[in-house]
């Protein structure tokens, strides 16, 4: 029956199972799960295996930039680029380091892990103007 009422308990249990499967926001200092962070924040566009969508969302698998200077890659996560939003408000430095470390080692990528200190260094001097949170979307 397609229009079956979803009870709140059922809905909540789905939500909890999602949260349970992905430790969504590990506390700072706790090991962040790079693979899960990738799934939650990046996979909608860059796709589950980092293969991207041609001419829309760049492939991360085999991407030379992604496997290059870790500070430059961290800078993109902190500031966004092109259509990619910034994740400054959404991810901690530890989480950014973890997700980048994952992306640089998954799907055949072979690049060194990214240290939290590298993310901190990339952040220096790049803190953009903090816009007031938008309380109603624009359109």
């Amino acid at each position: 029956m397609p229009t079956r009422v979803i009870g709140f308990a059922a809905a909540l249990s789905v939500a909890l199972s999602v949260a349970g499967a992905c430790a969504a926001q590990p506390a700072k200092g706790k090991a962040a799960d790079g693979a899960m962070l990738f799934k939650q924040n990046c996979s909608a566009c860059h796709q589950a295996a980092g293969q991207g969508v041609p001419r829309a969302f760049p492939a991360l698998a085999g991407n030379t930039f992604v496997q290059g200077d870790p500070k430059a890659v961290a800078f993109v996560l902190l500031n966004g680029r092109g259509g990619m939003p910034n994740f400054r408000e959404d991810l901690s430095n530890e989480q950014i380091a973890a997700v980048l470390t994952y992306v640089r080692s998954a799907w055949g990528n072979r690049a060194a892990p990214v240290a939290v200190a590298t993310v901190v260094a990339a952040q220096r001097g790049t803190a953009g103007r903090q816009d007031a949170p938008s309380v109603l979307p624009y359109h």
Partner: protein
Amino acid sequence: MPMSTNPDGSAFSRRMFLERLGGVGGTALLMAGMSALGFGIESAAAAPPAMSGGKGKKVIVLGTGVAGLTSAYELASAGYDVTVLEARDRVGGRSFSARKGATLTEIGGETQVCDFDDGSYINAGPWRIPYFHRGYLHYAKKFHVPVELLNNDNDHSYINFEKGTGPLAGKAVRKQEVAADMRGYATEMLAKQVRQGALDAQFGAGDKELFLDYLRSEGYLTKNDFKYIGAEGRGPLINPGAGLDPGPGKESQPYPLSDLLKSQTWRTLRSVSSLDQQRTMFEPVGGMDQLPAGFMRNMPPIVKLQHVVEKISQSPGKIEVFYTDGAGQKGSVSADYCVCTIPLSVLRGIDLEVSPKFKEAIGGVSYALVGKIGLQMKRRFWEDDHHIYGGHIYVDDPMIGTISLPSTGWLGDKGVILGFYPHGAAAAKISAMSLAERKAYAIAAGQKVFPQYADNAEGSFSIAWHRVPHNMGGWAQWTEEGRAKYYPTLLEPDGRLYLAGEHLSYLTGWQEGGIESAWQQIGKLHQRAQAA
């Protein structure tokens, strides 16, 4: 506009300016200029270019969003031989209302079939028509597409902010309470300073008393000592009524200022005061797909559905568009001109014979990540139990963005709520969820505000526009650099190819941008065709 000076030193009057505008752009531009100069004539800017004498010259229009339909309708009316190619099996593009049976497979996603009841819908793309979007209203009127008011502001709606601190954090408070209290406290404080003479240097003769009158009026302050002790407008604890019980009712008490400040709820008060969001706001009766349907009723059968453009080639004498149709057959159509309204996010993936500069410009803009979900509710509890009729529920979870209540079907049985409307990184996150997870997330957020939410939730339809084939994004997001470097290039034709759409306007993300861009581009095309 003050008098300015010509290069030769002579005065350049408003009148001369207008005459020149009229000479260059015809009456429409003249009238628009008069409006801009304060003559108060607005409507003429909101009309298509006057065109006739197309003489059967061939034009291909790509895409059937409002920009494509506007182009096709006007060109066909002017005597051009128009063929329209549309990739999907429906017209309208992003002007899409998801109804029962609508299917969507996002890139990398599951196939979704909308499971609303008959008659229910969610405007999955654009949903609001500001009063000054005269182009949209021009066609709504012309095609007899009825509109209704969209309640874009509701004093009685809830604000449920969880990220603030203090006793109001995580508590659903009424917007009218926050508005009355913040205005009251702010004006009281300012009045105190003014009365103590702290700001005397700011006032001209007599202005200080007028300013105090304003503050007292603005904040509902007491007559003699300028105190805020609450206001009727924040809503009573018990509404006044008949007899002695409830009789006069019972007044409510203001929240403490510190609680309000810490709650951050005051951030909502400016939300619908920007020009784009002011009243009057409209929506088409029956869904945003009604205007595209209006175009279709008024055009010859020139739209070919399920024709996906693969390549556009040009030679000095013609332009040719290659496509694959719904049966997998490849074909092409040639014409004198082409008006392409395909979003740049998609166009950059199509094989184009254009100049390198034009090609680079097509890639010079990013598209918005944006999501929406419609939740069908089996009962209109927000109306029946909470006395909230339309408007928005404000939350501070960016993955929800806003919850919005329907402005149609008042006092009816069921209704479809906009359950989330996230942007940017938050939209990326929610779109990475499965359909069931998205729905559960939306329901859990609404449940925090309405105890009836989860128990009443039925069907749903969610969309992440950045993952939708043939769209690949909500709308164009120009940077200042892109506006300077690429935008002007795309406004001019490349050979016989003209682009049009919201992306070629300063009304990006609004249907009006698509309509006005189409008018501008087909006007250029027509001028050239007439001269040829």
